[in-house]
Every structure is written in structure tokens, then in C-alpha cells.
């Protein structure tokens, strides 16, 4: 506490006392300081692009009055000489929760589906009315911490909720009150994909739900603004009020940055987005967003890889991240992406400076670094006129340093904010580094002092004898205690001395016998030995900086491509060709692939430009299509409501999933990523091609057919939950959910088509597409009663169900299904995993097929999906399906069910060249995919796979070596971790 007052006292002596001048004072006379302060003879970085040597800056009332080589200095000026020193604008961190008390986590039992609040938006996690200032308390401790890093200004906000309300721009001025420090109390609006911890409302439970919620919210805000809502919604009012503020979005990763930008673009909002530090992995996509990025630099420490067992569990992608992350800021700069730096995400704020140095060593230019800390955040906050530079009129927020602020050896002396001085290191301390000789009690001593500015060290010798000692140096007073040369005794001599100019030390010494004698030591040599040491160290450091960045691959993990592969002209000679067309299976046949399409099928084909592949004894088929997959997605279920038609998996496709590669190795070329089965009306599908290395956006089919997942039975009625909290809880209720939603969608569509104004409702839009036969349903289903039910509901609304997926009791109503015209996409032999699959039989596919239903075999499982050829073969075993038809169960039939059979699913001239070369009969358990090709591009090749295994091992051992070097240098390491891939199923609740 005493310390605290002491510090405050120091600051009272500063020069920025401008307060709320209309406030009465009862503590004395009102005495405003209207003097000037001039900083002279400094190297002044007015802005990242303007440096003036030997310059002067004049400050008054917390602002810069003038700056330049020859500025007039008024008479009532206190002058501070900064010869040899530099001035920089102080840094700005625009993504903090500085001084904000975070809410407590809400507790309660079981899921809560309804909102807690009334008079606000229907979703508790949307809180645009929240105001950071109401929970703000200036935190001098963390302010001091930030000042030491060079920050003078932070934008703070309540880091809680999807829409978080307004943030505030705060000057880190320890000697002022909020009236002065708060530069803007409504400086920006903050958003994220993460729910509030203060509320328990279940929706949204997934990132795609958060995206959908934001979209609906913007629609609702417009509807509200137009005066269409008779009731009060304080959230939407606040949202509309905040519309013209800067919108700052907490993405937190490259993938979420892209997602946030996508939502913003749909409403003409350009968010400033917090990145994840992994932008370099697909930098061109980040660039294409045009979004300004707030960049964390929470670089990882090297892993502790001494133990080979543990080290072997590290994934290449995690090891690469350690090597590559420091290059992220450079790569953003090189790609012309606007970015500001933030301390956000750092476990210890102290590591900001060392990480910044690391980024600079990795090639980030000093100018860009300074911009990212000053002018860029100032501009992104719309405050370039008052912060970010030291132009006249700006706040006097500046740093005084011993030199180049981005040099490791530079000392940051002072951090001035709004004209208030915060001393970090005493800049007037005299440098006593150097060599001295002195005599005491008849002995001559040699003393070498180094590091006196911060951590003084001394070497003391008499004759040839080195003496143990302790030295301190504070406020120009040196205190040296050392052991006498007589090693038989345990005796000490203590010296206390001060210096005037740093060239001599003057004081007294207390001898072991208690006698005081005068002490005088003259500097014989300046500290160049030490300089040499430093120079050597610097060379070493520079060498560290040269650590090469491992190549970034597409995707940036094992088996990724260093360069995205290109389409080729390929001629397969002499294959057994499974056409899936009237021609059937053709022996000894050639297939030519050109421009991504099947160009020719026949005998003795030739093409001068083609790469010829001898397929003698091998089988060529169209690629396997999985109608029901959950790989390559960041989330699968939005279970926060019983209908979630507003969400789409296309928002959350994950192009960096290793299971894409493994699927390719199993001959799979297309999949439908379905929403899960948490609710009766699920979300929209993403239908993708497994173009390993491409962006998420490029995986999705062009002009993709529109699909949505529905679900029935145990999962949607939450049979395994102990809470009966959400309608429906029975199959009876499930039907009513559909009837209700379709009735409302019908009314909605009619209102929309009538031309009158209507509240845009994304969920209803999607359901209306179904009624208008523009979107198709793939419905998770098990027992015959519910299968029958859904067909009847659809017929009632005059449309057809497109596909029943799982459909394990389809065989019981196969005739009805054929009549309705619905397809069945089923498991080959799964059963016994829950009660509703009691009557599941492996003959299901065969019975449905024989009844005239279009049948597909699907996986719903990342493991099975890479062996779908084997699963198709089970239909030959169970139910005697012909081999040709069984093969169609995993190729042409799913293509038909997905309305893609005009593009894929068979080998037909003109169709997409999505083909697989098998070493054996494709239905055989002994078959292996040798090449998997999509649109003429070879995405999987057994030969390349073999090479990759070797190069992965090589790269990992290189990285291990680099990490060992880092550890040997004494740098901190972190324990290894085991990367996990969460396997998503229908039932996965996120």
C-alpha cells in the first residue's frame, strides 16, 4: 500500500493535470498548470514513416503542440534534454478487456431453451445494449504492465456473448480519472461466435448456429428499424444505434475469421476481425476478405522433445505451427493485409516483446511493426487525428527509448500518456560500466562492472585471485560486498560509492575489522569487452533469426501439397472399366480424361498430350460417393432448437481434415456432409468434392443441389437425456413439429409472394424452398411408423421426401417408399447400437432395391467411409444383389439421390473425371485404390503417398532437432501434446 502512494506521488509531479474544470473543489484553490514541456535533441518518430533527428516536441495539456527541428519554445516551458534518445508514439491495443469485470458463469440443471430476458432480443447471447463502461474500473496494475510493453491506449470491451455491445477507448494514464482517460466511451461494437457465460439459453450450440443467429438478428434489426414491430426490443434498438460504430469481431482463428467476414459481407458490414495467428496457412483467402485483422502473437514455445516416446506423439502440424507462426505477421504484411497487433491471447503479457522480436527476426519490417501498433489501430478505431502519431494535436502518448525500439538491447525509459509520465527505467542513471582499479588496505584490486543500467554484474580480482562478490547500483549509488582474498577466513569488505559522471566512484569501504576507509576508483577502460560479448551474442541472435520456415502445404499438415495439383490429360490403357451405364463392365478398355472430364471411352485410344497409365489387370470406376458423412466439418449439430433450418454446414466446412485424405485413399470423391440428428428439422448440407488442398469454399459443388437434414426417432425426442425439456418427446410430437413448421412456412411463402412487407425469416425461407421443390430432404430415420409418417406429412404439403438416410426399417415399407418415390441411403449391416435398430437387417438394401427404391450405402462414419467399396460388397452377400448393382449403391445411386447424376456417378463421356483406379475387383476386400482423381486432378496416388511418408519423417526429425537446439539454448519449452481428432457422428452435440 505504501508503495502505491509513493508511486502516485511521483505521478502527481507530472504535467497533465487537466480535469473536469467545471467541477467544484473543496480541497484548495483551483490551480491549473498551463506550462509547456519540451523534449529536445531527440530522434522523434512522429509516425512510422516520418523520423526527425535532433528534434523537439512541445507538449501542453496532455497534447502535442508542435514537433520538428526548429519549433518555437514558449517561455513558460520546462525542458527535458533527450540527447541520444528516441521518441516513438506509444502503442495501441484495440482488443482487450482492460478493467472489465467479467460476469459469473450461470449455473443450473438441464438445458434451457427459452430466453431469460424480456424486453430484449429473443436470444440471451445477443446483447448489443451492453456497455463496457458500466463494468469498467481502471486497473492500474495491468495498466502498468501494459505501459512496460509500450502501450498507451487500449480499446476495451466486455468479452462475453455473441453481440457484446459497445467498447471504450481508454488512455493508460495512471494519474487521471476516467473523465480524462476515457477517450471514447462508445468506441466500437464487439461481436463473436461464443455464447455468454452469464446465460444458459441452449441456442446456438454450434458455430453455424451463431452465424445463423447473427444473420437473423440483422434482418430483424432492419425490420424493427422500419417500425414493423409493435413491442419493445431494447437489443435491436441498441444494435441499430451501434450500427455506425466500428464493428470488431472476435474470430480467433483463420477459419473463424473467414466465417465472420462471410456473415459481414452479406450485410455490407466490414468487420475488423481478431485473427488466430494461423492466417499464413491460407493467406490468399484471408487477403481476399479485405478484412483488417487484429493479430495475436501468442507464439508457441518449442515442445520438450528429449523423450523420443513422447516426441513421437507430436503431430507434424503442431510441430510446424511452432516453426511457422512467427512468420505470420511478415506474411500478412507481404500480402498487403492491414493488421494491428494485440496482446490478446498471450498467457503472459510479458512475452509480447520477445514474441514481437521473434516476428521481426522472422522478417516483419520494423516500419510495419510500428504501424501495426500505432497508426493502423488508430485508423481502425477512427481516431487517427488524436492517437497513433505525434503530430500536433495528438495526445501526448509517447515512449522515450535508448534507441531503436525494436532492438533487443534498447531500453524503454518512459511511457507518457496524455502528458503523464510513467517511468519504466530511470534514464538519467549514469553508466558505470567499465574497468576500474583501486587500492584498499594495501591490496590492489581490479574491478570490471557490466550491465549497470538494469542488472549490474561485477568481476573482482586481486592478484590472480577472483573474489566472490555482490553488486547493486541504484540512483547512482553502487554497493559492492566481497570476500577477502584470505580463503581461510570468512571475511567481507563492503563498499558504498557514488558517481558524478560515470567515470569514477567515490565513497567509503568498511573493512572486516569495522574500520571505515575512503574509497576511490577511476575508470581505466570503457566497457568494450562487454560490447564484444554483445556483438558476439548479436551475431548468434541473427543466426537464430535465420531459422528457415518449413514450407506451408495445402492443407498445412501431413500429406498436404506444397503446390496445389493441377488437372492433367490422362489416358488409362487396358482397364476393366465399370461404366455404371448400359455398357456395363468393359474389359480391356481405354479411358481418356481431358479438361477435367471423361473425354473418350473405347479400345485403342490415343492422345499425344496424355500421360499414359497402364491399367492392365486393374479396374477403373467412377469415384465413390458417400451420401451421409460427417468428416470435414467444424460442427455438425445445432441442437439448441427443435428446428434449425437456418443453419448450413456450408458455413463450417473444414478443408484441413486428414479424413479427407483417408477417404481419398479409399476411393471416395464426393460426400454429403449432413447436419446431425439432434432435432427434427436439422440444418442444410454441404455437398463437397474431396479436393485435398483446396479451400473450404472450393470443395463445395458449384451450383450445388440444395439439401437439408431432417431426423426422426430416439435422437430427436432426446431419449437418452434425463431432462424432458424440449418438444417433442415422442414420435407423436415429431409429426406435429413438421406439420407446424410446414404450415407456417406455407403461410410465410404466401405472404412473401403477395408482395407485401414481411419479416425475413431465414428458417422459413429454407422450409419454403422445400415446399417449392427447390430443396430436398435427407431424413435420418429408423422405424417404419415414422418413415410412413414423414411421407404422409410431405404428401399433405404436396412435395416428396427425397431420401431417407439410415432407413433401417425401410424394408418394412419399401413398397410405400417406391410409391412415394423416395430413395433409401442405408448402412450395410449396422444394428444393435440402440433400441430403435432392433429390427435392422443387413438385407435391407436388397429388399428396398428389389422393391424399386433407389438405394445407396452410406457411412455416417469416418472409418467406414474409407471402405465403402467393401460395404457395397456386403449387399452381394446379404440379399444376392448383382455386383454391378451393388457397385452402383456407392456411386451412381448416391449421385442420383443427390441430384448429381448428370455430373458424377458413372463413367460416361462428358461427365466429371472423378475416377478411381483399383488394383483389384473394386468390391473385393482385397482391392486397394491406387489413384483417386477428381476432375482430372490426381488427389491420391499410392506412389506419392509412399514418398510423403518418408518426407514426413524427415521433416519431423528436422523440427525435433530445431526444438532441441532451442532447449539447449536455455529457452523454455512446453510438454508435448497429443493432437486429437474428434470423430463426429449424427449424435455429436456440436
Amino acid at each position, binding site marked *: 500500500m505504501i508503495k502505491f502512494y509513493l508511486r502516485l506521488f511521483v505521478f502527481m509531479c507530472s504535467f497533465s493535470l487537466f480535469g473536469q474544470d467545471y467541477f467544484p473543489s473543496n480541497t484548495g484553490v483551483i490551480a491549473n498548470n498551463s506550462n509547456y514541456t519540451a523534449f529536445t535533441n531527440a530522434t522523434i518518430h512522429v509516425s512510422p514513416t516520418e523520423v526527425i533527428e535532433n528534434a523537439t516536441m512541445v507538449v501542453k495539456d496532455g497534447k502535442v503542440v508542435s514537433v520538428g527541428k526548429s519549433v518555437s519554445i514558449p517561455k513558460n516551458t520546462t525542458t527535458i534534454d533527450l540527447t541520444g534518445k528516441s521518441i516513438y508514439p506509444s502503442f495501441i491495443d484495440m482488443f482487450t478487456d482492460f478493467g472489465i469485470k467479467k460476469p459469473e458463469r450461470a449455473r443450473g440443471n438441464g438445458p434451457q431453451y427459452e430466453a431469460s430476458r424480456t424486453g430484449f432480443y429473443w436470444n440471451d447471447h445477443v446483447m448489443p445494449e451492453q456497455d463496457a463502461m458500466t463494468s469498467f474500473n481502471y486497473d492500474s496494475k495491468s495498466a502498468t504492465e501494459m505501459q512496460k510493453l509500450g502501450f498507451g491506449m487500449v480499446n476495451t470491451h466486455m468479452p462475453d456473448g455473441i453481440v457484446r455491445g459497445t467498447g471504450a477507448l481508454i488512455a493508460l494514464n495512471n494519474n487521471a480519472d476516467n473523465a480524462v482517460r476515457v477517450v471514447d466511451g462508445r468506441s466500437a461494437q464487439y461481436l463473436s461466435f461464443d455464447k455468454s457465460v452469464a446465460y444458459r439459453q441452449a441456442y446456438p450450440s454450434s458455430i453455424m448456429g451463431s452465424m445463423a443467429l447473427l444473420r437473423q438478428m440483422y434482418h430483424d434489426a432492419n425490420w424493427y428499424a422500419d417500425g414493423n414491430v409493435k413491442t419493445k426490443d431494447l437489443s435491436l434498438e441498441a444494435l441499430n444505434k451501434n450500427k455506425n460504430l466500428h464493428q470488431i469481431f472476435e474470430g480467433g482463428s483463420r477459419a473463424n475469421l473467414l466465417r465472420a467476414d462471410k456473415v459481414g459481407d452479406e450485410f455490407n458490414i466490414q468487420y475488423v476481425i481478431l485473427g488466430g495467428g494461423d492466417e499464413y496457412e491460407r493467406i490468399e483467402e484471408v487477403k481476399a476478405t479485405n478484412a483488417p485483422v487484429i493479430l495475436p502473437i501468442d507464439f508457441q514455445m518449442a515442445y520438450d522433445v528429449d523423450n523420443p516416446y513422447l516426441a513421437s*506423439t507430436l503431430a507434424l502440424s503442431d510441430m510446424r505451427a511452432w516453426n511457422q507462426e512467427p512468420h505470420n505477421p511478415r506474411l500478412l504484411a507481404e500480402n498487403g493485409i492491414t493488421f494491428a497487433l494485440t496482446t490478446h491471447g498471450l498467457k503472459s503479457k510479458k512475452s509480447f516483446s520477445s514474441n514481437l522480436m521473434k516476428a521481426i527476426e522472422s522478417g516483419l519490417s520494423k516500419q510495419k511493426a510500428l504501424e501495426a501498433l500505432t497508426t493502423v489501430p488508430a485508423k481502425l478505431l477512427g481516431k487517427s487525428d488524436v492517437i497513433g502519431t505525434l503530430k500536433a494535436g495528438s495526445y501526448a502518448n509517447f515512449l522515450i527509448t535508448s534507441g531503436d525500439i525494436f532492438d533487443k538491447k534498447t531500453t524503454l525509459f518512459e511511457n507518457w500518456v496524455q502528458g503523464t509520465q510513467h517511468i519504466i527505467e530511470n534514464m538519467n542513471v549514469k553508466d558505470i560500466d567499465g574497468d576500474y582499479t583501486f587500492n584498499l588496505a594495501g591490496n590492489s584490486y581490479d574491478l570490471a562492472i557490466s550491465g549497470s543500467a538494469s542488472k549490474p554484474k561485477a568481476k573482482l580480482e586481486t592478484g590472480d585471485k577472483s573474489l566472490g562478490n555482490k553488486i547493486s547500483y541504484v540512483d547512482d549509488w553502487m554497493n559492492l560486498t566481497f570476500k577477502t582474498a584470505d580463503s581461510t577466513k570468512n571475511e567481507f569488505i563492503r563498499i558504498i560509492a557514488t558517481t558524478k559522471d560515470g567515470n569514477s566512484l567515490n565513497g567509503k569501504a568498511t573493512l572486516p575489522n569495522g574500520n571505515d576507509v575512503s574509497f576511490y576508483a577511476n575508470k581505466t577502460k570503457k566497457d568494450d569487452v562487454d560490447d564484444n560479448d554483445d556483438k558476439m551474442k548479436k551475431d548468434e541472435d541473427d543466426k537464430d533469426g535465420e531459422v528457415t520456415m518449413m514450407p506451408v502445404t495445402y492443407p498445412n499438415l501431413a500429406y498436404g501439397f506444397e503446390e496445389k495439383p493441377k488437372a492433367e490429360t490422362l489416358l488409362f490403357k487396358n482397364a476393366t472399366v465399370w461404366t455404371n451405364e448400359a455398357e456395363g463392365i468393359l474389359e480391356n478398355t481405354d479411358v481418356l480424361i481431358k479438361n477435367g472430364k471423361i473425354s473418350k471411352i473405347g479400345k485403342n485410344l490415343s492422345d499425344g498430350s496424355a500421360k499414359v497409365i497402364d491399367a492392365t489387370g486393374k479396374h477403373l470406376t467412377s469415384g465413390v460417393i458417400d451420401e451421409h458423412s460427417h468428416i470435414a466439418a467444424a460442427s455438425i449439430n445445432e441442437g439448441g432448437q427443435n428446428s434449425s433450418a437456418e443453419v448450413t454446414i456450408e458455413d463450417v466446412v473444414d478443408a484441413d481434415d486428414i479424413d479427407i485424405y483417408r477417404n481419398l485413399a479409399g476411393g471416395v470423391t464426393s460426400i454429403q456432409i449432413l447436419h446431425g440428428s439432434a432435432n427434427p428439422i436439422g440444418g442444410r448440407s454441404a455437398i463437397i468434392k474431396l479436393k485435398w488442398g483446396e479451400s473450404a469454399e472450393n470443395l463445395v459443388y458449384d451450383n450445388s443441389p440444395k439439401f437439408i437434414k431432417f431426423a426422426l426417432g430416439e435422437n430427436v425426442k432426446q431419449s437418452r437425456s434425463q431432462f424432458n425439456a424440449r418438444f417433442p418427446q415422442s414420435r407423436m410430437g415429431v409429426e406435429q413439429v413438421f406439420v407446424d413448421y410446414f404450415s407456417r412456412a406455407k403461410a410465410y411463402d404466401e405472404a412473401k409472394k403477395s408482395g407485401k412487407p414481411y419479416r425475413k425469416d431465414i428458417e422459413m425461407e429454407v422450409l419454403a424452398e422445400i415446399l417449392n421443390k427447390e430443396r430436398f430432404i435427407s431424413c435420418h430415420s429408423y422405424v417404419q411408423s415414422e418413415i410412413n409418417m414423414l411421407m404422409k406429412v410431405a404428401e399433405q404439403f404436396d412435395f416428396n421426401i427425397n431420401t431417407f438416410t439410415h432407413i433401417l426399417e425401410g424394408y418394412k415399407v419399401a413398397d410405400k417408399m417406391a410409391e412415394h418415390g423416395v430413395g433409401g441411403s442405408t448402412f450395410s449391416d449396422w444394428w444393435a447400437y440402440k433400441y430403435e435398430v432392433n429390427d435392422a437387417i443387413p438385407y435391407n438394401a436388397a429388399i428396398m432395391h428389389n422393391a424399386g427404391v433407389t438405394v445407396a450405402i452410406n457411412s455416417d462414419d469416418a472409418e467406414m467411409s474409407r471402405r465403402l467399396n467393401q460395404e457395397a460388397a456386403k449387399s452381394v452377400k446379404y440379399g444376392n444383389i448383382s455386383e454391378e448393382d451393388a457397385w452402383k449403391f456407392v456411386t451412381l445411386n448416391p449421385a442420383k439421390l443427390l441430384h448429381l447424376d448428370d455430373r458424377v456417378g458413372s463413367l460416361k463421356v462428358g461427365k466429371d473425371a472423378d475416377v478411381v483406379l483399383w488394383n483389384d475387383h473394386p468390391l*473385393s476386400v482385397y482391392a486397394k485404390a491406387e489413384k483417386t482423381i477428381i476432375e482430372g486432378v490426381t488427389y491420391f496416388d499410392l506412389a506419392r503417398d509412399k514418398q510423403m511418408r518418408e518426407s514426413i519423417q524427415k521433416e519431423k526429425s528436422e523440427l525435433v532437432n530445431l526444438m532441441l537446439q532451442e532447449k539447449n539454448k536455455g529457452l523454455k519449452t512446453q510438454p508435448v501434446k497429443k493432437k486429437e481428432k474428434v470423430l463426429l457422428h449424427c449424435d455429436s452435440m456440436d
Partner: protein
Amino acid sequence: MKKNIINIFSFLLCSAIAFAQQTPAPKQNKDFAIVGATAHIGNGEVIENSIIVVSDGKITTIGPEASTPITKQAMDMIDAKGKHVYPGFIVANGTLGLVEVDAVKASNDLSEMGMYNPHIRSIIAYNTESKIVESMRPNGVLLGQITPRGGRIAGTSSVVQFDAWNWEDAAIKTDDGIHINWPNSFSRGRWWLGEDPALKPNEDYSKQVKELAEFFNESKSYDKGKKAEKHLPYEALSGLFDGSQHLYINVDDEKGITDAVNFAKEQGVANITIVGGYESGNITDFLKQNNVSVFLRRVHTRPESEDDDYDLPFKLAKQLVDAGILVALEPSGQMERMNSRNLPFYAGTTVAYGLTKPQALQLITQNPAKILGIDDMYGTLEAGKSATLFISEGDALDMRTNKVSHAFIDGRKLSLETHQTELWKRYAEKYSRKE
């Protein structure tokens, strides 16, 4: 009230599940011969155009048709020209009959509470009436080890055949071995205490190993004493020390395997099998030196790390077999009971990734029989051994051709009908009606 409703519900569930099982076949009362088939012996050998004579539940003769004269009048002849005969497949480390429906708790008898449960015996809960058990037979899976799960020492397994009235009937080797779950080398942070939930090296590993060693030591001390006061768990371990029981250790990582084998050797356990063994391919020499066999984890799984070879789970069997290690396949994992009928296809997949077909067959016949200690009677088609075998129309390791027409356990001719075939036939008939 609510509880009652749940109980009634569970009761209904159980009774619904217990219907309509196939009646166990009667004892063989007439000799028969299978003539003309390709006989896959299970020991690596194949006899084309074979003749197999079965009498009183045993194979009396097996050999090439041409050189094996028999008296045809006295027996039934099964013409199997162009077909294939295999020894009944054996599912090691299985859990059939312990759970009927995964998601229905009332049907689950898989594991007991507590950490050290060697006295917990799977045979007690083995449900011969399981609809899943009967569904094994049409795929040629006729025998299995029934294994409890969970805890550090999960319990004691038994080996059964899949056509029985009750568990006593079913048992062919009771209490064959003890199953240990070796401590994990990685553990998860407790997220609810604010720890990082990622997998980090397990700090309690040594402590957990020591605890296990103490349990073994105490059991041995107990064994030597007068046993004045019964200690069921300690007593249950005694078979490991006198060599009458086998020790199965579930462990995947290289270091864990090394520690586990050294542990078992130090404890004086003679018969050791590693179960799982994901990284066993890295230490084949060590396994070989220590004469340790492996129940290799389910072939149809994904690699554990994104860096691993995509086909690692497929090719691991080849790696171990080439190194001369005794390997059998095990099915544990997601939906393992119903998936146990895919055991032949797990073996088939190892052929695509390196093994020969006869080698792959050994993984589910002779090798598990040897490890389980039932090879005197089961696992191969040899004169004097049990006639536990089946006839398939084609290659039984390939789903495309696995079509079982006859199956026998101890010479008894099994029904190949199941709950599933009955439903198939019922609905096939529905659609064939002209109504």
C-alpha cells in the same frame, strides 16, 4: 412412480429382446463327410478337393479326396465341390452376450464398478440367447472369448461356443485369463478445474503402475499364506502365478508395451498377450524375444495420428507376422459386438495390405486358438479335433463371396437362421404376394 415406469419399461425392453432365438442343435448322431471342397486348414495349409469325415463331433479324417478312401454308405454326404471349408472363426477379446443394445443400459453387463476386479467373471453374464450372438454364425464366426471391460483389472474371461442353451453349455474354457488395462501414457487435463483438456503426458503413470504391482505382490503374499480370511480379488489372481491362466494386457503405446511386458515377466507370469498393440510394430524384436503374442486391435479403424500411414491399421498384422509374432485379431471398439461378425473381413483386409490368405486366416483360427489354449480341439481342421467348421460358397474372408451354407460346432449342425434372416424372409414374402 416415475421409477416404476422406468422399471416396467426396462422389463418390457428385456422381454422384447429375449424372443425368438434359434434352438441349439442336437448332438451329432450320424457320421457325415464333406466332399470336394477346398479345405482351409487354418495352419497355413490348403487342401484342394478335400474330404472331411466327421464322427461323434470330431474330425476323424481329412485329406485329398483322391487319396482318402471312405465308406460312403455309413454316413451322410455333403457335396461341397467348388466350395470352401474353414475352421470356425474365433473372436478373441470379444464381448458378445454381455450387451444386447448399446444404448439401453438395462441390457448392459459389460463392466463392474471399481478398479481391481480380477474376481469378476464374464461367463456369469454371458447371454446365450443374444440375438447378436446368433448373427455371428452365418458369417462363420463360431467361437469367442467373452471379456469383461473397465477398470485397471477388468476381470476374468472365458471362451464359449455360439450355440448353447446356457452359459455352462456354452463354455469351452472357463476363466481362461485375466485382463488388465495398462495405465495410459497420456492423460487429459481436468477442464472443470480450469486445466487444459488436451492430452498431456500422464503424470500419475508411475504411481498407477506401482499400484498395480502392489496388487500383484499382495496377491502373491496372500497365495502363500493360509487364507484364513477370504480375499476374493487376491485369490482370483492365483492362476496367473501357477501358469493356469493367461494375462491379457490392453496397451497401445510402445513404452507402455515395454513396461507391461517387463512387469508381467517380473511378476512371474508365463503367458502374456498384448491386446490392442497399436505401436507393437515398432518393437517386434522385443516382443519376439519375450515370446509375447498380440491380439491386434480392430483392423477396420482409423490411424490414431494424422501423420500415421493411412493404412497403418490394415498393414500392422503383416508387420507382426513377418517378425514371427503370434497374432490374432480382436474386435474391440465402437459397436464391437455386432461388428464381431465382420471378423473374417478384418482378416481379408490384412491380405490387401500384405499377408497371404492362409496367413490371414490363421489370425482368426489357429492363432487365437493357440493363445486361448483351446488349440487341442479348435482352430484347425485336423483329424482328432472338434468338427467346429463351416462351408462357404466362396472365399470366406471376402464379403463379396462369404456365403455360409453349413456350419457345425462339435459336429452339431447349426441353424443359420437369425432374427435378421427371419425378418428378411418375412418381408421378402410380403412383397412377393400378389395382392
